[in-house]
Structure formats: C-alpha cells, structure tokens
C-alpha cells in the first residue's frame, strides 16, 4: 500500500510528464485495439456466424481449358453439385450466393423497395443460425421443390409491409415474381459478410434451374460453399476428401481441369481471398499487421523511455537521499515497476474509453469495406466491443510497452552513485 501511495504522490508531483505518458500510451492502446478489432471482426466467432472457427469455405475457382485459355471467377453450381455436395466428412454443407445488392421488392399498393438478397439452401440456417421472430428456416424439401418462399429481416419487413409481425404466409413480389413470407428474423449485422442480407430465398441443389432473382446475378455461375466441420480437428480430413473428390471431378471434365487454389479455406483465408486467380498470402498479411503493431508500439515506447529518463533524472536527488538513508536498490526498482503498472492501468482505462468513443462516433469510417461487395454501411456490433479477449491483448501490449521503456532508465537510476546524486 505504501508503495502505491508513494507512487501516486510522485505522479502528482509531475503532472505534465505523467499526463503525457498516460496520453501517449492511451493513444497507442486505442489504435492497437481498433486495428485488432477491424481484423477480429472478420475472423472471430460471433453473432450469426458463431461457427467460423470450424467452417471451411470455397468461393472461387479457375477452369483451365485444353486450348491453354482459362477462365477464373466465382465458384459455380456445377462443381458444387458434383464435388462439394457429395462430401461426407462435413457436418453440414451450406450454399449462399454473393450479395445481390438491389432487388426490387413490392407489395400491392405500396412503393417499390430496394433490398439486398441472397439465394441460400436449407443448411445455410444451420451453419449461420439466426434468431427467428416468426416462422422458421426452409427445409431441404422446400428448397428442392423450388418453392417461392422468402425469409426477411425485421427492418426490411417494415419497409415492405409497414409492419414486422403477423406476416407469415403473406405474398409479395421480388423482381415481379411472387414469393410467400416463410419467416422473419432479427436484423443481421452487415459486418457478418457471409450471413448478412435483408432477404433470403432458396436455391435449388438438385440439377436444374436456380430460382430466378432478377437479372443482376445468376446463382448458377456465382455461388459459395461453407463446410461446417464437427470441430477444427476435422479440417485435414475434409481437405483430404476434397482433394480426392477434385481428382475424380477433373477426370470427369477432362481435358479441362478445375483448380481450387488451396480451397476450402479457413475463415482468415476466405475473407482475404480478393482475386479469383490467386490464393491469398497469409504470411504477407501477418507481416503487415506485425509491422503496424511494431510501429504502434515502438514510437510511443521511445517517447516514454525519454520521458522516464527525464523524470528519473529530476528525482536523482530524492533517490540519492533515500539510498543514503538505507533504501535498497530493489525497493527503488520496485517503485518504478509499480509506477509502470499504475500508468498502464490508467492508460488502459483511458485507451478503452477513447476506443469506445472513437468506435461509436466514427464506426462507419473505420471498418473496412469487404472487397468487391457492395455493402455501403457498417455498423459496429456491441458484441465485438465487449470482447474481453481483445482488451486483454491490448492491455498486455501496453504493459509490455511501459515495462520495456521504464526498466532500463529505472535500473540505471537505482545504480547511480549516491554522492553524485546528492551533489
């Protein structure tokens, strides 16, 4: 307790330096947290995508043709039907189209509404569970029979019908095709790029025609697969089975070849797979982040080191007197370490508050647009903000920062010659 009282008094005696140290570290923590959060938002399990850590994805493909040409682009329904749909090791196989950014929806007598839509299969709602307010997800039989049913988010229900309950069975038009409401779900956060949409309609998984959904995207040529494994330990099993199935598929389409470019992907590869003819280089991406964190830590560390040095130089006299009266070197050191800890706590708190403030005020600006999707507004989910994991990491970084920059000057100060100090 004594040490803490002592430290607090010391801090109060040099308000500017203490303030600057805390401010610098708080800023670092805030930025580290924001950088981590923007990355984690894409990777950790949360919300309607609670199984990201045990899901593998396939979204792109290259078809190499016998005359040397090749066409690369989104995964298509043909390889999905003949390769992925036949896999046995995944627990579930979900299909979802890329976001169809605006479909025209209307009810008789009401204005046209532009909504976002996705064509999905029944297993989609097992892999990306959503909270149903009314009704339920489609069954596979309903999907297979091409039933014109739709699941709508609450907000879109209000836009289309003017209300968000008692709508089960009501009919409406999507791109001039009649659909029936099968269920209403709670709004999904746009940050959950796989699950997010405003309307979900079935896509058939038997050979045949995918349900028409406007002229913008044809699900036959643009579809994504999510393979839910029983646990991440099963990933190698699934990948092996995929490789065998790929070999068999290539035999069947020879002389053309299908190249999956290392898919099916784990979540982190999946969100970074920007180009349809090149696998993402995770090492490069990790190096990028490492460099960013290094800079976020080194620059403030230098600041704190030099300020600590000045602070301790000022207290040389005090330390000299204390040493003359018998204080041990270890006590002096302990005091500096305690000061580090207190600074860390204070900056940790300040950094956290600053981070909240920034996220709430500028949330729309800092979360990155996912490549080639047309999602234009990202709201921050309260779920991410309160993840103790991320905060724990940030605090750890901060502690390391403070300790690193305080230890050397503190050690040197405690070793200083008493006579020199008292001069």
């Amino acid at each position, binding site marked *: 307790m004594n040490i803490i009282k002592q430290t607090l008094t010391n801090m109060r005696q040099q308000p500017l330096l203490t303030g600057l140290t805390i401010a610098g570290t708080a800023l670092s923590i805030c*930025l580290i947290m924001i950088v981590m959060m923007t990355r984690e938002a894409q990777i950790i399990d949360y919300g309607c995508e609670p199984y990201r850590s045990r899901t593998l994805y396939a979204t792109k493909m290259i078809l190499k043709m016998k005359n040397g040409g090749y066409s690369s682009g989104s995964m298509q329904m043909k390889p999905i039907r003949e390769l992925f749909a036949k896999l046995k090791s995944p627990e579930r196989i979900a299909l979802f189209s890329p976001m169809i950014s605006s479909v025209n929806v209307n009810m008789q007598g009401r204005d046209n509404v532009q909504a976002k839509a996705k064509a999905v299969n029944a297993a989609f709602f097992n892999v990306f569970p959503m909270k149903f307010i009314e009704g339920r997800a489609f069954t596979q039989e309903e999907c297979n029979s091409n039933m014109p049913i739709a699941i709508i988010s609450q907000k879109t229900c209000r836009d289309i019908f003017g209300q968000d309950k008692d709508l089960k069975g009501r009919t409406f038009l999507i791109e001039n095709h009649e659909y029936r409401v099968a269920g209403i779900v709670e709004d999904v956060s746009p940050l959950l790029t796989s699950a997010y949409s405003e309307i979900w309609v079935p896509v058939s998984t038997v050979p045949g025609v995918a349900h028409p959904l406007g002229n913008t995207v044809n699900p036959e040529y643009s579809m994504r697969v999510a393979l839910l494994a029983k646990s991440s330990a099963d990933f190698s099993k699934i990948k092996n089975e995929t490789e065998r199935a790929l070999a068999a598929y290539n035999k069947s389409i020879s002389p053309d070849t299908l190249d999956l470019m290392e898919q099916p992907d784990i979540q982190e590869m999946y969100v970074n797979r920007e180009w349809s003819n090149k696998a993402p280089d995770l090492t490069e991406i990790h190096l990028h982040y490492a460099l960013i964190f290094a800079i*976020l830590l080194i620059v403030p560390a230098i600041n704190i080191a030099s*300020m600590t040095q*000045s602070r301790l130089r000022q207290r040389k006299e005090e330390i000299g007197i204390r040493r003359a009266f018998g204080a041990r070197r270890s006590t002096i050191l302990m005091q500096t370490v305690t000061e580090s800890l207190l600074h860390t706590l204070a900056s940790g708190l300040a950094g956290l508050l600053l981070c909240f403030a920034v996220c709430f005020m500028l949330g729309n600006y800092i979360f990155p647009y996912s*490549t080639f999707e047309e999602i234009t507004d990202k709201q921050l989910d309260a779920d991410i903000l309160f993840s103790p994991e991320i905060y724990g990491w940030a605090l750890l970084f901060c502690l390391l920062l403070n300790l690193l920059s305080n230890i050397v000057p503190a050690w040197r100060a405690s070793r200083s010659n008493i006579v020199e100090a008292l001069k």
Partner: protein
Amino acid sequence: MNNKRKNIGRRYSYILHQIWNERRSNWAMMAELLIVSCVVWYLVDCAYVIVTRAMEPLGFDATNCYRLDVSKFDESSVGYDTAHPDSMEINIADFLALADRLRHDADIEAVGYSLRNDPYQGMSYSTEIHYDTLPTSARMILCNPDFLKVFRYRGANGETPGQLAAMLKNGNVLLSHQAFGKEYDTNKLIGKEMKVGISFGSNDTLPRRIAATFMPVKRFSREEITKQKSFILPATNEAMHQMIYSISLAIRVKENCAQGFSDRFRQKISGKQLRVGNYYVNGFHSYGELKRNSEAKQDTNMRYYTVAIVFLLVNVFLGLLGTFWLRTQHRFPEIGLQKAIGATNTDITLRLLTEAILMMTIAFLPSLIIDFNIAHANLTEYYQGETLATGRFIICAAISYVLMMLIIALGIWFPALRATKANPADVLRGE
C-alpha cells in the same frame, strides 16, 4: 554585412554544439524523429499515388448522367406479356424501342447503350488489335453513336462528341490516342486500316478504317490514364445479337432539366411508362453514386493513412512537449542571463524553435536515405510503371518535411511560452 553573416553562423554553430553536448538526452528524440519521418514519408507516398491518379483527366464526363437498370419479365413473372415471347429478334426490337422512347423524353438529352462500356463497370472485354504488323491489346467499346454524346468523348484533334458520333458508322473504328504507344503517332494512322480481333469466341480479324482518334477514357476514376487503350465499334444489328444479354443503358439529362429529375423519373418508372414488350426500366443510379461506391475501398485506405500520420505526429508532439518542458526548466538560469544581456522574448522563442528544427533536420537527412532505398527496392506503389521517380520523391519528401516542421512548431509552443517566463532578476539573485 560580413559581421551579420558571421553572427548568424555563430548562432547556428552554437545551437549545433548545444545539441551535440546534450546528445545523451537527445538520442531518444532523434531516433523517434527518424522513425516517424520514414513512416510519414511512406504514408505520404501511398496517398500521393492515389491522389495523382484521381487528378488525371477521366476522358469522359458523367455529370447529370444515370445508369438505368433494365429488367425483363420472363414466363414465371407476374405481368409477363405473352405477345412478346422470348426470341432474339423480339428482344432486340423491344430494347431498341425502349431506348427510342427514352430519347424522346423531354428531360433526356441523349441515350447510350453499350456492351457494359459505361463507366464504373466491373467487366471489360479486351482483344488484340493490329496496325500492319504492330500489335497491342486494347479494350473494346461496342456502343451506339449517341453513347459518345452521353459521356462526351472528345477527339484527339478537337472533335466534339457529336462529330465523333457521326463518324461511328459501319466499317469504321475510332481508336484511342497513342494506343500503340507513345512512339507511334496515331494521328498518322487516321484513314488507314487496322485489324480487330473480335472476342466473341470467333477469331475473325475484321479490317476497319480508323476514322478518328479520341482522348483515352478511364473505366474507373482511380485508374492510370496511361494504361487506357481502347477502340470503339458501332453497335450494328449483328453486334446486338451478342450484346443483348450483356447490355447496359445510360442517359444524359438536359442541364436545365436536372432539377427534380430523380423524382420525375421515379414516377415514370412506377407509372409503368418505361416498358416495351417484356423489357422495362426498374431503377436508376447516378454516376456520382457509382463513382463513390467504386472509390470506397481506396477512400478507406486514405482514411487509414491519415489516422496513422496523425497518430505518429501526435506522438512526436507529446514527446517534444515532454522533452523540452523539462529542458526549459533546467535552462532557466541560462535564459535569464540571456534576457539580462538584452535578448527579447522573441529571441528566446526563436532560439528554441531553431534548436528543435535543427534536430529534426539532422534526423530527417538519414531518413531520406532510408526512404530512397525503400522506393528503390520496389516496396512502394507503382505509378506509371515506377516506384521511384524524381518528382514524386521530392514532392513526398517535401510534404513530410513540412508536416514534421509544423508538428515541431506546435510541440515547442508551450515550452517556449514557459521559457519566456524566466525572470532575469530571479536568476541573477540565485547567482
């Protein structure tokens, strides 16, 4: 005259000596300034490339223009018109009639349709073109003549959009300026024939007469204009057979009708006036909106660069504040003495500022060497094929230097104010 110069020289050498003497406590500050200078330069360079590309001429003008969403009723749709069954000839006829109806609208100045060649389209078709034995790969623009009026393409020799449109007839092709590279002046090719490989699956090379050249046109606002090679072919009936399922429709609104156009047009859409057979317009997007969407990712990156630069500069600011605050306190005796001799407050402030700027410049010079090496190692963005160009390097280094200077000035402000409070009387009392 000579004396004045000597005095200034003495002042600088005095400050430099002081910096050297205090090097133990200066090392941290200098190291930080070095690192921050390097990183700030890198970020400024990234931003420079984005901004320079954005400032290049677009080659087209899409103000007051809109892309129309055209949908088609099919057999399972509610409202399908059985009198217009799904056949190529009927589809083409209906689409063209729809375009014609739009052309006669009072608000609309011109209607253009193309093989997804309007701006901000993700798809493009490239093929090889040949003049004599000289090949190059170029983007194909397949459109009706009015398309050039909608987007106001300009001729390389001053032709207006209307004149270019008039030249877009059967057997003709329009070629972008210097499509074969800077060494081959395309002006000399006007009137000559070039071969175009049509990329609709067949390998026919049709000879076409180059009627005129036009100023290069970007697809997206942030591309590089020097890479834009393209050629324009007219959308003949035969071409329509290939285009009809991948066609995009755009309109230019008359300038004096721009006010309130959105509402009027939306009414026409819901009033079902814009339907011919099974083709109908069911939405529209302004090119301003499409431009912003396409720039979104880079704009986010620019935001990150700004945040990073601000973060680094704030750290430098805090560091400077901390270092010089204490230093000023230690130097009170010295400052008091200077004031007693006759230095004014401005002199004191300037002395402190000079010290900080000299420190920063000394740290900046090695950072320039590091920056040069980073650019030389191709670790920065490519612009016009290079990562290291004299003009670009000098401008980015200058911007970084100015940013650092500004933050130094800000960081010295409070310590300087404090320094001026040194009272000669107090100091001399102590002596």
